[in-house]
C-alpha cells in the first residue's frame, strides 16, 4: 500500500506539533514483553504493508485472518478446560461435570509422577500422586478416566510429553477395548518434547531418543489415526517460564519446523503429516500483543511450510491452535481480580482466532480450581461467545493500523530469532547450548526487575494492595488418593499375566535398541497391563536419562 507523501507528512506533523505538546503520564509505554508502543498508529506505520500479500482473506494464504473462511460464524472455538486431580474416578466426575456445563471438548491434566514417567508407587512419587493432576499408571486407569464418555464423539486432549507415546498407547487400547477403532479417535496429545528441555522441564530420556519417539508417534498416527493430532507444538510453557511474546512465537515455530524436518528425514511426505500438526499458545495479559502474535504465527507457518518445506496441500499450511490464558498472570492477592484478567486474555485468544480455548480459574495462583471457580472460567468463554459480539465477524481487528503494525513487528523479531538459532546449528543444538533457556531466564529476570521497581504495575501485588486478606476456599489434594491409586496399580499387576507382561517389555527394549517404530510395542505392553513406569524404565535402560545443567 503506497502511502502518499501527504499522509506521511500529516502524521509526522501531528506527532511533532500536536502530540509533542501534551505531557505523558509516568508509565512504561511498552508491551509486557518490552516492545515499545507508539502514541498513535496511522497508515504511515503500514508503508510497506500489502493487504493482499500480508493480510489476505480468511481461509486463504497466508491465513493471517484465520485458517477457515467462516471461523466462529461457522463454528465457535472448542471450550476445552484443562482438568485432572486425584484418581481417575475423581477426574472422570469432573470431566462429566464440565461436559454437563457446556464444555465442548476434554483436556487432561496428569500428575507429576505420570508426567515424569514414574508409577504411583515409585519412591520419588511420594506426596505427588494426584496432586498436580490425575494419576495414571496403566490402561485400566485410562478406561476408568473416560468411563461413560463416548470417545468417538468427544475430542480429548492429553497434556503429556516425555511419556506421550505410552499414554497414547493406553488411550488407543482403552478405546479399542470399548469397541472404538483408533481411526475413529479425535483429539490431541501434546508430545512436544523440545519445549520440555526449553521450559516445562518434564523429561525421561536424552534429546535424540526422545525425538525418535516423537517421530514414531507422528509416523504411526499418520497411518493409523487420521483424526488425531499426534503433537501440540507449544509456546504456552515457554511463555510461562518468562519468555517474551516474540520468543514464545519464535521458539514454538522453530520447534515445529524441527519436528517437520525429523518427519521428512524419516521419509514421510510433508502433506501426509503436516495437516495433523497442531499448536498451543499462551494468552497473556498484554491484549494487542497477543492478537498480533497469533496472526503473525499463522502467516509465518503458512509461508515456511509452502516455501521451505514445499507443502502443496492447503491443509499443511494451516496453523490451528489451542490457547490457554496465562497462569503466570494470576495473582494470589485479591484473587477475584483474576476473573478480569482471564476474561481479557480469553478475548485476545478469540480475537486472535484460536480454535480451542482454556480459561484459568481465579483461584489458580494457589491451587487447582474448585468446581465453582472452574464454572466461572467456563462461563467467561460463554459470555464472550454469546454476549459480546466478538464472534460475529472474522478477524475483527484486521486492518487496524496498530494490530497490523504489531503483527509485522513481532514477525520480524521471530525471523531474527530463527536466524540466530540457525547460526547455532538448529533448535536441538541451540537447546544443548542453553540458548533458549538463557533468553527465557533473562526475560523473566528483566520483567521481575520492572515489577520490583514498580515500573510495571501488577494490581494487588505492587500497587492497589489490600492487607490481611485470606485465601478463598481452595481445592485441597486428597491424601487418600495416593493410597487408593497404589491399590489400583497393585490390583492391575496382580491380575495380569506376568509372563506376557515381561515378554512385551523385553520386546519393547529390543525394539528400542533398533530403529523400528515403537508404537506397536508400546501398545502390546499396554494391552498386557504393563505400567507406564515399567515401560519408561525399560526404555531408559536403552536410551539413558537426561540431566539439565542449569543456568540462572
Amino acid at each position, binding site marked *: 500500500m503506497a502511502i502518499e507523501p501527504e499522509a506521511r507528512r500529516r502524521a509526522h506533523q501531528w506527532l511533532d506539533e500536536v502530540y509533542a505538546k501534551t505531557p505523558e503520564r509516568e508509565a512504561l509505554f511498552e508491551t509486557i514483553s518490552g516492545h515499545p508502543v507508539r502514541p498513535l498508529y496511522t497508515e504511515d506505520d503500514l508503508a510497506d504493508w500489502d493487504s493482499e500479500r500480508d493480510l489476505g482473506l480468511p481461509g486463504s494464504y497466508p491465513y493471517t485472518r484465520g485458517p477457515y473462511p467462516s471461523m466462529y460464524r461457522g463454528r465457535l472455538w472448542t471450550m476445552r478446560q484443562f482438568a485432572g486431580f486425584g484418581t481417575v474416578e475423581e477426574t472422570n466426575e469432573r470431566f462429566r461435570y464440565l461436559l454437563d456445563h457446556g464444555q465442548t471438548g476434554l483436556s487432561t491434566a496428569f500428575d*507429576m509422577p505420570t508426567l515424569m514417567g514414574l508409577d504411583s508407587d515409585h519412591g*520419588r512419587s511420594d*506426596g*505427588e500422586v494426584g496432586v498436580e493432576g490425575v494419576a495414571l499408571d496403566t490402561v485400566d486407569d485410562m478406561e476408568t478416566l473416560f468411563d461413560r464418555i463416548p470417545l468417538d464423539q468427544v475430542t480429548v486432549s492429553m497434556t503429556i510429553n516425555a511419556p506421550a507415546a505410552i499414554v497414547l498407547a493406553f488411550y488407543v487400547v482403552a478405546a479399542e477395548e470399548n469397541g472404538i477403532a483408533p481411526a475413529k479417535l479425535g483429539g490431541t496429545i501434546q508430545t512436544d518434547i523440545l519445549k520440555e528441555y526449553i521450559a516445562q522441564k518434564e523429561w525421561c530420556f536424552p534429546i535424540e531418543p526422545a525425538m525418535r519417539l516423537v517421530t514414531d508417534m507422528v509416523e504411526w498416527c499418520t497411518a493409523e489415526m487420521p483424526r488425531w493430532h499426534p503433537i501440540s507444538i507449544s509456546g504456552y510453557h515457554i511463555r510461562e517460564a518468562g519468555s517474551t511474546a516474540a520468543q514464545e512465537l519464535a521458539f514454538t515455530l522453530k520447534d515445529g519446523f524441527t519436528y517437520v524436518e525429523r518427519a521428512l528425514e524419516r521419509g514421510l511426505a510433508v502433506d501426509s503429516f503436516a495437516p495433523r500438526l497442531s499448536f498451543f499458545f499462551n494468552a497473556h495479559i498484554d491484549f494487542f500483543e497477543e492478537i498480533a502474535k497469533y496472526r503473525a504465527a499463522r502467516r509465518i507457518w503458512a509461508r515456511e511450510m509452502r516455501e521451505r518445506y514445499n507443502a502443496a496441500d492447503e491443509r499443511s499450511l494451516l496453523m490451528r491452535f489451542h490457547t490457554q490464558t496465562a497462569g503466570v498472570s494470576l495473582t494470589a492477592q485479591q484473587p477475584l481480580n483474576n476473573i478480569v484478567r482471564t476474561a481479557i486474555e480469553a478475548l485476545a485468544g478469540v480475537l486472535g482466532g484460536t480454535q480451542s480455548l482454556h480459561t484459568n480459574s481465579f483461584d489458580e495462583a*494457589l*491451587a487447582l480450581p474448585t468446581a465453582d471457580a472452574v464454572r466461572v472460567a467456563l462461563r467467561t468463554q460463554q459470555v464472550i461467545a454469546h454476549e459480546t459480539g466478538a464472534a460475529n465477524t472474522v478477524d475483527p481487528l484486521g486492518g487496524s493500523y496498530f494490530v497490523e503494525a504489531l503483527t509485522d513487528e513481532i514477525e520480524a523479531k521471530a525471523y531474527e530469532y530463527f536466524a540466530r538459532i540457525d547460526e547455532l546449528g538448529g533448535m536441538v543444538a541451540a537447546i544443548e547450548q542453553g540458548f533458549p533457556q538463557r533468553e527465557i*531466564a533473562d526475560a523473566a529476570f528483566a520483567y521481575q526487575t520492572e515489577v520490583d521497581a514498580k515500573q510495571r504495575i501488577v494490581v494487588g501485588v505492587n500497587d492497589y494492595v489490600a492487607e490481611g486478606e485470606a485465601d478463598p476456599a481452595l481445592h485441597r489434594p486428597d491424601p487418600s488418593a495416593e493410597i487408593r491409586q497404589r491399590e489400583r496399580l497393585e490390583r492391575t499387576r496382580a491380575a495380569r499375566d506376568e509372563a506376557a507382561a515381561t515378554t512385551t517389555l523385553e520386546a519393547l527394549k529390543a525394539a528400542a535398541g533398533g530403529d523400528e517404530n515403537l508404537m506397536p510395542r508400546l501398545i502390546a505392553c499396554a494391552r498386557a497391563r504393563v505400567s507406564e513406569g515399567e515401560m519408561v524404565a525399560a526404555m531408559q535402560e536403552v536410551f539413558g536419562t537426561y540431566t539439565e545443567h542449569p543456568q*540462572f
Partner: protein
Amino acid sequence: MSEETATRTIRVVVAKPGLDGHDRGAKIIARALRDAGMEVIYTGLHQTPEQIVATVIQEDADAVGLSILSGAHMTLVPKVVALLAEQGVEDVIVTVGGTIPADDVPELKKLGVAEVFTPGAPTDAIVEFIRGAAAERSPA
C-alpha cells in the same frame, strides 16, 4: 574492626525438591541473591531431600531456599527439615517459596521454616530476609 568481625559472604543453596519443574522463580531468586553479593548454589531440578541436604552440608550453606510449585510441599519440606536435624545442621536457615496456601504457612513455620514467600513476594524482601537471618545466625 577486627578480621573476625568482617562480614563473611552468605552462602545460600537454592533448591528444587521433588518432581516440580517450575524453575522461573528459583532462578530469579538465585540471580538476585548473587547480585546482592551472596554465594549461590542452585541445585537444579528434581532433587530428593537427601540430595538437597547433602548439598547444604557440602557447600557449608547458611541458608537453603526450597522452591515448590507442585503442591507437594507438606511432604517434601518436613523431610528436608528432618534430614537437616538428623545431620546436625538444624541451624541452617530454611525458607520456602512457591505455591503455598496461607493455611499451610503456620505448620511450615512450626516445623522450623524461618519464612515462607508466597506468590508476589518482592525480591528485595527475600534478599533482605536472608541477609538479616544470616547475620543473626553468625553475628559479626
